[in-house]
């Protein structure tokens, strides 16, 4: 494995491609594998209901390591009866314990969980990388610390909800049913659980079928933290269990992160039920590079925007809009830079691009890329070696892309960048906003007034200027238009878990 993924220090014709004078061969990266043993992967994992690890009645299903296609562990899956049990446990915990506890006490449990994640961060990073396929440097430096930060941030809200701007006596909703995706398994769990608990709700949450492990380690942390039984319940399984959960009559709130198609189904099926719904769905972000941008930094931002987490990011900068006058320079530097990205063993600390999470996702990326060829775009693929085993897709850039092509309209959710060009700022805005999505956008320019002007004109929930893919629990995240509604993080993220819909000032919520 390590041999096949060992990439050269520099390839192609980039300026850094020369070798050390006198040496016969270019420098190579020595493998620097993280130890799989620190993940303490168990042969079998159970679901977590009412404070205990229990067998589900949905049978055992293996979860695989997408980098090797080998089985990682068996996971006991839930049946619908288990979901009923979990909802009942959550309701009981809400009625008897959690809704009666002071905000300060709730907060202290959340602080404990934050500490627990930090303490077991190395183990969690390994578990995440083995189960998901993302590079260890990303799970270690981004996913896990940000998950801990989310608990730490929301812990402090638990006794300050009256200051959140939703009236003097903000009330919890009750039991939250949550469904999360496979791209950031632990981080998405933290985004969902931490605000729900801080606001005083209890939770039934379903991780993605292909990435159930890290949240079950989180369950151990919550158990060790003494979190009261039933406050958080984790049911494992596939889409049918998720659908059953979000439509369960015993829950009061639904939070979903995933595809726009599924989000629409959920919104439709919950219409008229009075349940509060928040959806964090897909995106097709424009990353806009003006001719006065700091090009080298922009190239780094473009790379980070589309290749972070193999492009399995709803807010990925998947449409590069580059001003015509600098197109050649940007594309040339971009190809040089991408050629240096190391693809392969996610456990290697040198690896930049890990494995695609599943065979299904790989085939979707392959299919959409083929559509790019068929519709006349020009494909360029990084010359990096691709391992023979595991699900991998090399970094790919399409140029000569027009707005009507599928690769410019549909979310690919993989390491595939579509490049479009523009001449004027107005054209950039029009093209950037020409999508049913509206999750994120990037702007690269040295001109401050243009940054602020663009930030105002872009119909997207997050605008990164001269940076990309930054996340923080204090900063609200969420989409415009068909990228969903509701926010996660910050003060507006709390609204998702509080009863804030009263129409008049004297009904509680202001």
């Amino acid at each position, binding site marked *: 494995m390590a041999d096949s993924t060992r990439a050269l220090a520099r390839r192609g014709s980039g300026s850094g491609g020369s070798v050390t004078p006198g040496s016969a061969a270019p420098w190579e990266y020595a493998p620097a594998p993280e130890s799989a043993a620190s993940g303490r992967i168990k042969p079998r994992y159970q679901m977590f209901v009412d404070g205990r690890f229990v067998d589900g009645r949905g049978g055992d299903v293996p979860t695989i390591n997408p980098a090797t296609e080998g089985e990682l562990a068996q996971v006991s899956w839930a049946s619908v009866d288990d979901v009923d049990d979990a909802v009942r446990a959550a309701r009981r915990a809400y009625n008897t314990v959690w809704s009666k506890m002071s905000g300060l006490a709730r907060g202290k449990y959340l602080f404990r969980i934050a500490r627990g994640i930090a303490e077991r961060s190395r183990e969690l990073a390994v578990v995440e990388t083995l189960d998901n396929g993302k590079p260890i440097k990303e799970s270690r430096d981004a996913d896990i610390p940000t998950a801990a930060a989310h608990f730490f941030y929301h812990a402090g809200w638990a006794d300050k909800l009256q200051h959140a701007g939703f009236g003097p006596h903000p009330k919890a909703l009750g039991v939250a049913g949550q469904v999360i995706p496979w791209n950031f398994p632990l981080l998405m769990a933290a985004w969902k659980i931490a605000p729900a608990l801080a606001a005083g709700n209890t939770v039934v949450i379903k991780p993605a079928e292909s990435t159930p492990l890290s949240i079950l380690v989180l369950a151990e942390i919550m158990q060790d933290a003494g979190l009261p039984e039933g406050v958080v319940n984790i049911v494992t399984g596939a889409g049918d269990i998720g659908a059953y959960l979000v439509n369960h009559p015993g829950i009061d709130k639904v939070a979903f992160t995933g595809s726009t198609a599924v989000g629409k189904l959920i919104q*439709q099926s919950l219409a008229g039920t009075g349940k509060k719904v928040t959806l964090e769905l897909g995106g097709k972000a424009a990353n806009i590079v003006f001719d006065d941008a700091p090009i080298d930094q922009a190239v780094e931002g473009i790379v980070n925007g589309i290749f972070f987490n193999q492009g399995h990011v709803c807010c990925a900068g998947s449409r590069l809009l580059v001003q015509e006058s600098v197109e050649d320079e940007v594309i040339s530097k971009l190809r040089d830079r991408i050629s240096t990205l190391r693809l392969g063993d996610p456990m290697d600390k040198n690896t930049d691009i890990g494995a695609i999470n599943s065979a299904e996702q790989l085939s979707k990326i392959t299919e959409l890329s083929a559509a790019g060829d068929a519709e006349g775009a020009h494909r360029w693929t990084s010359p990096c070696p691709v391992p023979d085993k595991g699900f991998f897709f090399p970094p790919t850039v399409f140029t000569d892309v027009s707005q009507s092509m599928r690769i410019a309209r549909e979310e690919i959710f993989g390491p595939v960048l579509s490049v479009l060009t523009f001449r004027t700022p107005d054209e950039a805005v029009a093209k950037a906003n020409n999508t049913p999505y509206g999750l994120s956008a990037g702007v690269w320019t040295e001109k401050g007034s243009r940054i602020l002007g663009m930030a*105002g004109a872009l119909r997207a929930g997050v605008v990164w200027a001269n*940076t990309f893919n930054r996340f923080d629990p204090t*900063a609200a995240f969420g989409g415009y238009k068909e990228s969903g*509604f509701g926010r996660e993080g910050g003060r507006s993220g709390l609204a998702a878990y509080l009863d804030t819909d009263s129409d008049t000032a004297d009904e509680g919520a202001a």
Partner: protein
Amino acid sequence: MAQRRTSTAAKDAATAAPTKAAPATATSANRGDKAGATARTASRRTASRRVSADAGGGANGVISAVPVLKTYKLYIGGKFPRSESGRTYPVRGSSGEFLANAAQASRKDARDAVVAARKAFGGWSGATAYNRGQVIYRIAEMLQGRRAQFVELLMTAEGYGAKAAAAAVDASIDRLVHYAGWTDKLAQVFGSSNPVAGPFFSFSTPEPTGVVAAFAPQDDSLLGLVSVIAPIITSGNAAVVVTSEARPLPAVTLAEVLATSDLPGGVVNILTGSAAELGTHLATHADINALDLTGVDGQLRIALARDAAGTVKRVYTPHGTPDFTKTSGTARLRAFLETKTVWHPTGAISLAGGSSY
């Protein structure tokens, strides 16, 4: 812009053909408030006929006391068109007497209204909060100026007693004043500077959702209508409003207030007609971002909420039956707000020593 609108309204008024027996505002405004609505309407209509007879027998015809009655039309893009379908439906008072023919908006009218709203959205949402506040305050001023007309209209059209009608109009004026003062508070109350754990300046600011289709209450034709419209436009959204079907007249008259309030044409578009007929077209329209379902209930409310899912519209439905006489909370304001978070590196002041990005 304002001039054009004003002249349009003036032209409209000038060309309005007298219909059979629409409320004659000029005469009715002068009338006392003692009689009940029914008696008043009956007497007014009798009076109209008598005046007609008098006029017919007048000596020279230069001065006529025949009241000019109003044709109630739609309000789209700052203009008052008839329904493109040519359809109207009779509007009756509280005891069944004929009041006027209202335009029955069609799917095409609804689509025209969405186009107008989308066109207006850019300018309205881009206006300064101070400016939006002044315009909404101006609406209150115009409504105050027409207070007597609306009191009369509510008594006629809704069967309100004089006191209740006056209270509803005064509350509507107050509501507008309340929201006029919200425009420049939203960003401070609902926005934030985010203390992120890194060298970045990050802020979150509320922005309008876009074009909102609102179904106004069926039974509270002025205060309910104003209470629905005001929070939508306060934050910079544009609205397509479907009025009460049975009581559309105050809405059309309110459109005249809006048209003379410096509110850019298209920011509020008013359709009279059937929520059941127009609802699905609006709920599935891809250029509408949100629905306010206050004025529809039962199966229609559920069906429209379901339709909205096809384009992930934000859907606002009040808890229970809203009491518009109470002080507004912020739920309606927040329902049509997005939060936008912007990040920028903070870097080093000197920019020396390499990248600050």
